[in-house]
């Protein structure tokens, strides 16, 4: 009898201890590519989120609890994103910073929506993402239709070029960028001489580049990411191409110039510009903190993911609760919240009102702002 009571009380203490430990931290999810060809991007972004959480914990956490980052690898694929999202929900995260690819953010956001968990994407640009009436999704990055329109106008109105060759990597992001840019070029009286896709991860793009060379366009526009575009620039240079190159935020990475070498000279890349905010005190402080912690500079994704994590943490603080619905309402109610990169206000759909967009040109192996603050 006494023994039984002892066992029960042990059991009770044990269960209490387990449940207490399960709730002693507030869990923030991170979704992004932590394996596959985009691993590096995912890891950098994750380090941004971890920094934001470490800083919040250093100040004593929020609501009397410490914060914890739960990373989930979406492998850069839609299937992976569903698994990642489910694993985050199982681990009871209160909000998610993610995902990177649009192709991942779509299915993942549906999974989060079922549990009404806030998701703030740090890079997905597909316009439809916030057009589906989901209440739980936020975006701090400019949308493709904006980017695409601005690209098309830049090519026709600013560069004064008419004939454009368009390539993309067949991914949701790259293809949409390419399509909208192409439509804008046509609308403004330009001509799209070729519209074709490449296979991401391949190393040899000479076949399509040789073909484009025979079509003799004035501009090559590329929709996709830096690893492929770097090789395209390099090989186009070797084939003696004399076109202007224009591309989008996914290719904005110093690695691009390392891969392409001299081939990158003169290329125009439209991106959210860290250079545009480099004198802003909030950004300077972030830069310093990131350098202290990781001994390396943050990239764009790390900065935006950091800002997103900060927004999420402030949202939890403002909601005064870990109730996911209250957190969503709190984030929605932000008016000119002072984010790391600028004021943050979300519209009805969850899109940030003022994304930072700039056009850069590669000059002497560096991205140099060409036009800041495109509208």
């Amino acid at each position, binding site marked *: 009898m006494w023994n039984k009571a002892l066992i029960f009380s042990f059991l009770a203490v044990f269960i209490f201890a387990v449940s207490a430990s399960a709730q002693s931290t507030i869990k923030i999810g991170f979704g992004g590519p932590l394996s596959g060809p985009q691993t590096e991007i995912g890891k950098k972004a994750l380090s941004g989120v971890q920094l934001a959480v470490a800083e919040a914990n250093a100040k004593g956490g929020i609501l009397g609890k410490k914060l914890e980052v739960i990373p989930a690898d979406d492998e850069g694929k839609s299937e992976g994103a569903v698994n990642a999202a489910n694993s985050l929900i199982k681990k009871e995260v209160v909000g998610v910073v993610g995902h990177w690819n649009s192709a991942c953010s779509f299915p993942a956001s549906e999974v989060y929506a079922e549990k009404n968990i806030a998701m703030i994407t740090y890079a997905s640009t597909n316009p439809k993402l916030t057009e589906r009436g989901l209440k739980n999704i936020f975006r701090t990055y400019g949308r493709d239709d904006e980017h695409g329109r601005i690209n098309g106008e830049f090519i026709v109105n600013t560069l004064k070029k008419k004939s454009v060759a368009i390539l993309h990597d067949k991914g949701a992001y790259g293809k949409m960028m390419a399509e909208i840019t192409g439509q804008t070029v046509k609308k403004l009286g330009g001509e799209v001489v070729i519209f*074709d*896709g490449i296979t991401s*991860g391949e190393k040899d793009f000479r076949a399509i580049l040789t*073909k484009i060379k025979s079509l003799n366009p004035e501009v090559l526009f590329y929709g996709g990411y830096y*690893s492929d575009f770097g090789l395209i620039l390099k090989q186009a240079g070797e084939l003696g191409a004399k076109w202007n190159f224009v591309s989008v935020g996914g290719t904005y990475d110093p690695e691009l110039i390392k891969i392409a070498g001299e081939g990158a000279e003169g290329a125009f890349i439209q991106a959210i510009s860290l250079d545009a905010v480099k004198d802003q005190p909030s950004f300077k402080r972030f830069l310093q903190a990131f350098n202290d912690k990781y001994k390396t500079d943050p990239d764009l994704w790390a900065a935006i993911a950091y800002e997103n994590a900060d927004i999420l943490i402030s949202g939890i603080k403002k909601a005064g609760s870990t109730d996911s619905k209250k957190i969503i309402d709190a984030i929605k109610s932000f008016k000119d919240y002072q984010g790391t990169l600028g004021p943050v206000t979300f519209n009805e759909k969850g899109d940030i009102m003022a994304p930072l967009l700039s056009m850069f040109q590669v000059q002497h192996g560096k991205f140099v702002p060409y036009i800041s603050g495109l509208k």
Partner: protein
Amino acid sequence: MFLQQVINGVILGFIYSTLAMGMTMVFGITQVIHFSHGEVFMIGSFVGVGAAVLFTESGYFGGNILLILVVTLALAMMGAALLGLLVDRTCYRPIRRSPRINSLVSAIGSSIFIQQAAILTLGSKFRIFPFLFPKGQFNILGSMVSYAQLSIVIVSLFLMIIFSIFLKYTRMGKALQTVAENQKIAGLLGINVNKFIALTFLIVSAMAGATGVLTGSYYGSVDFFVGFMAGLKAFTSMILGGVGNVTGAVLGGLVIGVAETLIGGYISNDNKDILVFLLLIIILVFRPTGLLGERIAERT
């Protein structure tokens, strides 16, 4: 433009060929689809990029590019050969007498293992491979051929020829062919089968390592994913050429390379992969054993 595209394709084809040759050799001797051959190639590239960066940046060999290329090739071949031997010893040899499906799983497993190990130890970042070829290009009938492309063809051809001579005219090569023909009888004849299989892995892995250096330097960037892509294309080339047939693998690689480029250049780059594999299926429908394949079914 047509000639230029064919040249583009042939260069690509030579890269596939050298790898397919190795894969098909391994199959001929052990009946294992050596999936991790692509990863051996990737590790060769990484050893190469490490050596090449060290030599070019710290000014070894007086900055003599040719000398650096030769030493880099040698080191990468050694590194790749070691890895190849290790894969055979740990993943294939212990299950040599098990059903073939086991070694297939083992092959895929080792491929994933090496790729993930590379991510964890070497990082997922790109490495920039220094350019180790003579700079510049020349003109053939209005098409540009760079010295780098020429070098790839020369080195690949050189390796292929040396390998064929070894197989056909040396005692060891003949013994190797006997092992491929029938392991049991070869064993009865006093040939140390495991030793010869190891020798095969040594040779083909060294070739893959050399290819890793050439392609790495040619394209200028190396990452952990290159092995997977190259392995897939080499596998396809091997099937197309006829599994187990060395000449077939070379032919298969060239056909895939040129077909890929011509389809990409003339029809649609977007649907290139679909069309290349459609072509592959059509060829296999009419020639189920590949272009030069023998009928393996009879032998096994």
